[in-house]
C-alpha cells in the first residue's frame, strides 16, 4: 500500500541535510507551512538556501530560522517588511540575498519541475536585475535567459491530502505551493485535513501525488486577519 502519511513533523523532515536548497511555499504567511518551518529549525540543518517569496512577513517561524544563523542564502522577490533577524545578518554579511522577480522565481521552479533547463523571459531586461544575464533577441525583442531552479526539499502547506499525496489548497493558500511541490527531491506536506483515498475529485486535485513524498496532518490555525 502506498502510504505517504507520517506520524509527526520530525518524521516528515528526517534526513534533511546541511547545505540543502529549501523551497518554502506561501505568500506572506498564507499557505506558508509554519509547523514544518519549526520542524526544519529542530533538525539543526545548517547552511541552508531558502527560496521564499517573502522574508517572513507575518510569520514567526521564518525569522526564527534566520536567527539560528543556519540560513546562508535567501532567494526572494520581496523581503519587506524585513524581519530584524534577517536585516542584522544581512548587514553583517552573514546571509546572502538573491533578489529575483516574483514571476521569474515561479517560472524557474516550474522549469526545474518540467525538465526545462533554461528559458527566455522579458522580465528584468534592461534593469539591474538583468545585468550580467545572457540576453537574446527573438522577433525584435530582447529577453534574458533564466536557468531552472532545482531544490532538495520543498515545504508545502495543503488544505486536504490523501495517503497517495494528492493535494488541494484553500483560497490563495495555493500560490507557490503547487509549483514548489513539483520541483524538489523531497517534497514534504503539512495538511489541515487528511481524507480517504478517492475522496478528492480526480478533476479537482491541485497537486497529483506523484510529486509528494511525505504528508503530515497538523491542526494548524488559520492565517491571522490582515
Amino acid at each position, binding site marked *: 500500500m502506498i502510504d505517504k502519511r507520517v506520524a509527526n513533523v520530525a518524521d516528515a523532515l528526517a534526513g534533511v541535510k546541511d547545505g540543502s536548497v529549501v523551497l518554502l511555499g506561501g*505568500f*506572506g*504567511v*498564507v499557505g506558508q507551512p509554519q509547523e514544518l518551518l519549526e520542524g526544519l529549525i529542530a533538525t539543526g540543518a545548517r547552511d541552508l538556501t531558502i527560496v521564499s517569496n517573502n522574508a517572513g*512577513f*507575518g510569520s514567526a517561524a521564518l525569522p526564527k530560522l534566520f536567527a539560528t544563523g543556519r540560513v546562508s542564502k535567501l532567494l526572494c*522577490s*520581496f*523581503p*519587506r517588511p*524585513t524581519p530584524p533577524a534577517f*536585516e542584522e545578518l*544581512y548587514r553583517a554579511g552573514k546571509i546572502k*540575498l538573491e*533578489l*529575483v*522577480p*516574483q*514571476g*521569474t*522565481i*515561479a*517560472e524557474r*521552479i*516550474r522549469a526545474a519541475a518540467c525538465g526545462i533547463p533554461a528559458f527566455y*523571459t*522579458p*522580465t*528584468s*531586461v*534592461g*534593469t*539591474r*536585475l538583468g545585468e550580467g544575464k545572457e540576453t537574446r533577441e527573438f522577433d525584435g525583442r530582447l529577453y534574458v535567459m533564466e536557468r531552472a531552479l532545482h531544490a532538495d526539499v520543498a515545504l508545502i502547506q495543503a488544505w486536504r491530502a490523501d495517503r497517495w499525496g494528492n493535494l488541494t489548497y*484553500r*483560497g*490563495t*493558500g*495555493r*500560490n*507557490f*505551493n*503547487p*509549483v514548489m511541490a513539483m520541483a524538489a527531491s523531497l517534497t514534504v506536506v503539512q495538511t489541515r485535513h487528511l481524507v480517504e483515498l478517492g475522496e478528492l475529485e480526480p478533476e479537482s486535485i*491541485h497537486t497529483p501525488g506523484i510529486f509528494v513524498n511525505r504528508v503530515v496532518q497538523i491542526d494548524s490555525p*488559520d*492565517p*491571522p*486577519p*490582515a
Partner: protein
Amino acid sequence: MTATQDIKPLNRQQMAARLAQDIPEGWYVNLGLGLPTLIPDYIPAGREVVFHSENGVLGMGPVPAKDKIDTWLVNATKQNITLVPGASLFHHADSFGMIRGGHLDLCVLGAYEVAENGDIANWATNENDAIPAVGGAMDLSAGSKRLWVLMEHTTKEGAPRLVTRCSYPLTAASVVKRVYTNLAVLDVTAEGFVVLDMAPGLSFDALQARTGAKLHRIAKS
C-alpha cells in the same frame, strides 16, 4: 508662476477616479500597491471589470466586512479580500504566465519616475543601504498589454517625476503607455509625452514648468 493659486490639483481619490473612468467594461486589470488600490471604488456600478492579483486571483472583490473575513484570501499586499461571482484561483506559475503572456489588458502601477521613452522606475532608489525588494513589478511592467502609471506629478520637494531619462534604477524599459498624475493625463508616444488632459486652472506652460521632459500638445483632429 503667478497662476499657482488657481490650480486645482487632483487629490488621491480624484486621481483614482480619473483613471477609473478610462477603464472600459471587460478589461482584466492588475493594480499595484498604494494609489492604484483606490481605483476599484471608482469603477461605475454595473461596469464589469475583472481585477487580477498576482498571487493567483482573478475576480477580486471589495474588502470584506470584519465579520466576513476569510483569512485564506489575500491580495498582493497581503490584505484580506473577497471574491466576486466568476472569480478563479490558480497558482503562481499560471498567474505570472498570464502576466508575462500579455493577457492582462491593463496594469496600473505607482512609480518614482517615468521617462519620455516609456521607461519606468518604481522598485528601487539609489540609496544603496536599503534591502532591495522587487516583487512582481518587473513581471507586470514587462508583461502587461498596457502599463499605465498613477502618481504625483512631482516629488514632495517639487522635483519632476516625468523626466527625459530615469535617474532611479529601471523596472522596465519602454513600456509605459500613459501616465495619470494629480496635474495631468499624458500619453507616452514615439515623440514623448503628449498631454491629453490637465487639472482645472492649469496651463500647458505651467504643466511644462513642473515636468522634466518636453511636453507635446495633442494633435487636433
